[in-house]
């Protein structure tokens, strides 16, 4: 029973995955925030003992298969930002939501750099608007993601 409640974490990640592949009109696609990264940042901040690098690694592989990208592209990006987060979460956790958002923006930007860098290797360029647009939207919705996931965590009695 005590293990069962951690299923909630997997459920939130599944919802993030659905949001990542949900069809959007063409113009909106490039502004789609990286839901997977947002949810992973939250859990690794809230439950760093349970949700860490291996979690990021496997979510990344699942994301890569779902998006049809090179196997390892989003994995590398996710592992990198969660590795950074693992070292900083104690200082970030106590900040106000607005300040956290800026930190999340930086993490999402690093994520974007890695993804765009690999795309560049494959000969595909990332439009500038897409490069900054998605992390920016991610920053704006971070407070809501944080509050929703915190409520879920409290309801599920995860600590």
């Amino acid at each position, binding site marked *: 029973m005590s293990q069962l409640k951690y299923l909630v974490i997997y459920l939130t990640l*599944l919802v993030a*995955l*659905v949001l990542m*592949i*949900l*069809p*959007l009109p063409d113009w909106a*696609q*490039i502004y*789609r925030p990286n839901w997977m990264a947002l949810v992973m940042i939250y859990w690794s901040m809230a439950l760093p003992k349970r949700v*860490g*690098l*291996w979690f*990021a*690694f496997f979510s*990344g*592989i*699942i994301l890569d*298969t*779902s*998006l*049809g*990208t*090179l*196997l*390892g*592209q989003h*994995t*590398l990006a996710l*592992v*990198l930002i969660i*590795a950074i987060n*693992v*070292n900083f979460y*104690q200082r970030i956790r106590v900040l106000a939501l607005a300040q956290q958002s800026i930190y999340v923006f930086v993490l999402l930007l690093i994520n974007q750099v890695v993804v765009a860098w*690999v*795309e560049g290797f*494959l*000969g*595909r*360029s*990332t439009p500038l608007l*897409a490069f900054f647009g998605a992390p920016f939207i991610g920053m704006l919705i971070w407070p809501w993601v944080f509050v929703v996931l915190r409520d879920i965590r409290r309801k599920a009695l995860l600590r």
Partner: protein
Amino acid sequence: MKTIIEVRGSSIQALFLIAVSIAMMVVDHRFQHLEIVRTNISLALSPVRYLVSLPATGGNWLGDWFTSHTELLNENELLKAEGRILNARLQKFEILAEENARLRNLLGSSRKIADDVIVAELLSVDQNPYSQLIEINRGSSDGVEIGHAVIDDFGIMGQVIHVNAQSATIILISDPEHAIPVQFIRSGTRSVAFGRGSTRQLELRYLPATADIKIDDELVTSGLGGRFPPDYPVATVTAITEDRVLGFVSVFAQPKARLDSSREVLVIKPRQ
């Protein structure tokens, strides 16, 4: 607070996972070994993909349900007329096909006349917005295999690159990583058409400046390389730019297939 050993442990773990990710990317890019990992994860996730494509499918269904009676009658009338025209043309084609077969027999050539096809529909799933990949609802259980060509009513769309049991991923001819061997119908010149990341344009690079090419020339598959069956329409030439220094021309062509709007596609199974 965390101890130094803990911090060091997590850094080593991070470096290890980063190295594994990079290794995976290299292997995935150059070899086929990770295909099985991809296939199995995709299979496990297929319920999620169907869930995601459900609203679009439901929307279509509702749209069909509420189409008015008169609209249906009109459409029916139109389709009947179109059917009559197509039938009339088909009679001609049948005669031509027979004649063709007879002539080929005379020449002793063994060209296949028709290919087997699998009818498939697009799944409404967004993938990486910078690459030109689409997903269809037929997979290995229907006989789809990696490398099969995919067409719509107007021309070549792309080829299959990943196959799961119930679905398959198709790379469009417009993807920057894709190239297709083509031939000009009028002059017979052979070349290779590269994708440029836009569904409206292909590029043929480094053609000799003396090549006989005009705007509106039609391009068909040449069948070289063995991936695409020969003689399917690919694109129409829209622009020719000349590099006077190097003596080459680059040709731009618009794909015939409706890469961004076709919903029903055909997967071509090459005959053994």
